[in-house]
């Protein structure tokens, strides 16, 4: 097995997900199966090959910095699970 229990716990933290105890073995097995399959890539010689993140030959698209109408604040807040005085509200982040 490539993926250990510890790897799985680490990846869950990175993903901000809890893995229920009764699913842990199944998730680990499935991740292992997939990663083992991905190992077929190791047969490909990629020396001197540049990574391709994006197919288009464009980068740094600029536009004039002009003020335009943007989303109305009430509309932007309309889907917020919790809001107060025109702000998104979350549990306290900083200590007193």
């Amino acid at each position, binding site marked *: 097995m490539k993926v250990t229990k510890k790897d799985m716990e680490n990846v869950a933290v990175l993903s901000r997900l809890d893995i229920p105890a009764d699913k842990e073995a199944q998730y680990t097995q499935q991740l292992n*199966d997939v990663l083992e399959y991905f190992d077929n890539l190791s047969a490909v010689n990629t020396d001197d090959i540049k990574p391709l993140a994006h197919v288009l030959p464009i980068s740094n698209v600029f536009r004039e910095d002009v003020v335009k109408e943007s989303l109305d604040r009430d509309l932007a807040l309309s889907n917020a699970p919790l809001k107060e005085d025109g702000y998104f509200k979350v549990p306290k982040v900083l200590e007193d």
Partner: protein
Amino acid sequence: MKLFEQPAHVLHDMLVNKEITSLELTEAVLARIDEVEGDVKAYLTITRDVAIAQAKAVDEKIAKGETISFLEGIPGAIKDNICTKGVKTTCASKILQNFVAPYDATVMTKLKAQNPVIIGKANMDEFAMGGSTENSAFQKTGNPWNTECVPGGSSGGSAAAVAAGTAVWALGSDTGGSIRQPASFCGVVGMKPTYGRVSRYGLVAYASSLDQIGPITKDVTDCAHILNIISGRDEMDSTSVNEEVPDFTKALVEDVKGLKVGIPKEYFVKGIDPDVEKTVREAIDKLKELGAEIVEISLPNTDYAISTYYLISPAEAATNLARYDGVSYGERAEDAADLVEMITKTRTQYLGEEVKRRIMIGNYALSAGYYDAYYLKALKVRRLIKEDFDKAFEQVDVIVCPTAPTPAYKIGEKISNPLEMYLQDACTVPLNLAGLPGISVPCGYSSDNMPIGLQIIGKALDEETILRVAYTYEQSQSYHNDRAQLGGN
């Protein structure tokens, strides 16, 4: 043919000639929904009253003698990952189950300028992750040709609606085959345009370097018309290309004489269903008979496309879906002691299994110690896959192959094995990795009478040639006139 079975171009002419009204047409489609939607379950939201109002407005315009645009007054469906202002946009996820889009996607703005009738929002795999629409958090869509079978995915609701006659046309999105494969499974036409041809602004992001919106229609003619409407540079999407959009309907020419059609040998190997191979080979023979030159080609890195795709797309998804944190929109879990616990509980409670799996694969591939071996390696192989196509297109004008290795399978048959599901995408993911356009057109049936699709792949920004080949093939056959037998029909 009944009204709801007709393609948009026929209905448009009927509207112009005052043979029908948009209200009659819209009511026929809504009545079809009443008849078959209980079995097909293609829609997550149906905006019946809005649709009726839109139809009446179009009829008033026609009565006044005003000219109407191609899609005006013609009912369609929108995949539920495309933002529709004032209408729920759920991505078939519980985390967005109450999300009402505060703005329109650019494709919606462009469509609305044409005044079509929007019937509703179509079911899909949650966040477009899947190939069967079984990953929807809300319902399983049935294939109109056999409702015990999947419609394909992730745009399964869009394809099923068009095939069932509960929409005349639809929009889908395609990250690794999500327009073409359900089109193939449901016996309709689906196109993924060149990456950058259509703005992604307002398309809920899955894998940003691969996602593209495109049409799902009853025939190639409708596909070209809708592509005309949705294409073009958009300053809200810096990856949309600044190239002139041709009139794609000019490509609807019955002529493939002298065109070089490449057949990639790697797409006809292990795992391909014999019925699929037979019908696709017959379609290739037909193209030859119609005057095309058939050239065997090789795309040697095809075998690595699945691994490459299933590393890159989850990596991008892990990043894109970090936004579902219960803060600015979407659901939020209750009773969390602090911010991190709130975020973790929210995501754990409201995201589905396949979405979680891909987020974890992505974060694993991007994490310290594995980044070079997995993510970076995949990006390098992506370049090799693209170069395979570049080389092939020095020799040929289009590439033709199956859209999917099998016809539609039974609901529940593959869902428990993620890897087996991923392997189903072998024929479609290479195009997304290379950014190329591709279309699926019906080319026959399996022994169980399930539709099979022919995939035609083109050079970047050369949708015209694939439309031409697709149209010529379509017109030489009658599959585009076949309709699923469903309900009283």
